[in-house]
């Protein structure tokens, strides 16, 4: 099974960097050969081709509607809403919708979000609650990296 991990968020807005930093940490620590990890500021259209070539996608993001330091895991399904700006996507489900429309299938998908405490300017630095969420996110990802 091929797995794609996509961490996204702004690296200069405090805990919004959670997805990116978790992706970076995964890469640093090493992942199995069947796993590809990428980090993005925003989700963009061309990611669909990479998504179409794998069996599972794990999105990593920060959330403001979660208690700081906590983590939420969701299964995602494709949506055919044309709500994004095309330059960037706010919703990974729309990307999955593109994947289905263009390639006839979408991979099994998970969204792991960590609750942040501070989204003020901070270059690749997390708040203590963000650090806690990062550790919890890494723990949630671990079993998903294997079939």
């Amino acid at each position, binding site marked *: 099974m091929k797995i794609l991990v996509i961490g996204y968020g702004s690296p200069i807005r405090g805990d919004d960097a959670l997805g990116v930093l978790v992706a970076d940490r995964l890469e640093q620590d090493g992942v199995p050969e069947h796993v590809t990890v990428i980090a993005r500021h925003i989700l963009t*259209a061309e990611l669909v081709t990479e998504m179409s070539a794998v069996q599972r996608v794990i999105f990593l993001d920060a959330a403001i509607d979660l208690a700081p330091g906590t983590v939420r895991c969701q299964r995602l399904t494709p949506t055919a809403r*044309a709500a*994004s700006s095309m330059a960037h996507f706010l919703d990974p489900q729309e990307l999955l919708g593109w994947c289905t429309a263009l390639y006839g299938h979408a991979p099994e998908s998970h969204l792991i979000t960590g609750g942040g405490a501070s989204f003020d300017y901070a270059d690749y630095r997390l708040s203590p609650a963000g650090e806690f969420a990062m550790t919890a996110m890494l723990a949630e990802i671990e079993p998903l990296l294997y079939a």
Partner: protein
Amino acid sequence: MSRTISIEPVTRIEGHARISLQLGDDGAVEDARFHLTQFRGFEKFCEGRPYREMPALTARTCGICPVSHLLASNKACDHLLAVSIPPTAEKLRRIMNLAQFLQSHALSFFHLSSPDLLLGWDADPATRNIFGVMHQHPDLARDGIRLRQIGQTIIEMLGGKKIHPTWVVPGGVNEPLTQEKRDAMLKLLPEALEIARRTYDFFKTLLPKFKHEADHFGTLPTMFLSLVTPQGNLEHYDGLLRIKDAHGRIVEDMVPPEEFERLIGEAVENFSYMKFPYYKPMGYPQGIYRVGPLARLNNAQACGTPYADVALAEFHMLQESGPITSSFHYHYARLVEIIYAIEMMERLLKDSTILDSRVRARARSNRNEGIGVSEAPRGTLIHHYRIDDDGLITWVNLIIATGHNNLAMNQAIKQVAETYVNGNQLQEGMLNRVEAVIRCFDPCLSCASHAFGQMPLRIELKNASGQIVDTLIRVGECGA
């Protein structure tokens, strides 16, 4: 009884722009204004920062074309250092710029504008969107994705996978190209060229359907500004400034970019935070000009690559004589530039010196004023800095491509509104055409100009006493 139609927000990018149409007693459009209501202040808050931070700071001006700001900013810094960067570094920067053109133009054509072009201006908005295109033209939609991916992949191969790469630096680039990466990039280009040529040929078959739009979508007698090579050919990274008028007469030529202030003035209006650049010798607002793909092709005698030159010759034949004045043909010009970008990247990657290890000139600041000019996908981009003797920024001015086109966008909206707006009865097709003329320019504002179909819009038709006569609301699904 005069009335005003207000379209707000035009842009969903934080919802900071709107259009207002002023109607006369007979319901005809008398004036149109494009209001950018977003204020950011980049030029001000960069003051006091070390000039070497400017590329990283200004790249964050834009999430869509950070590479353009990265390049213009580093060119301004090169100027501050008073160095000529190594030839290989210049070629590598050019490749990154062209890759940015590839992915940016692909986004504009395939995903932002194709629903109008393929499904029709008056199609049901519920299906006039990217999913409608995917349903009816899946191959074309996949082609668009693939071109974007190839452009983005080349940028990443050069700059590294980090968000906002720091590979381009004052004095050149900080790492030479490896043979492995060069070969990997070259491998991508034949497929890209095949897609680009196929799309170009397909687009030409669509043109007869859009004759009316081509005649009324910002068909304006403006001048055109762009960089050109010393031979007068298409240029995207360096070169000299050329201005051509609507009749094809060259008004200014071979002007060193450092002298741009002699050509360009900037006016302000109280209805927009976007400035209004104009050709200084003609004054404001007579000195209206356009930039971007249309201007670059109008100003270029040749592209200098085989397929793009054929396409350029066909582009010039869209009108019997003179420059192409219809803003609708920005779409055409983008496709020609995509072909050019691919061909030129291949040529540069095959250059015998492209793997040279000397890619950076090192120096301290050697002057107190630096100007960097390059072509961004949307047009000429100017970064102008002043620093003190400690290298701290004391003053910044950025003239971005969308700003250059501000006067023209206002006039284009007016022209479309005059042609299509019935002041007494608002129609969805009118809304879409007003949006569509903005998309021709591909302004970087803008979730709004980068969204379609479901863009949230509210148009109110009021009489002179402020009473709402008619309202048309389209609710967007996305609130960012």
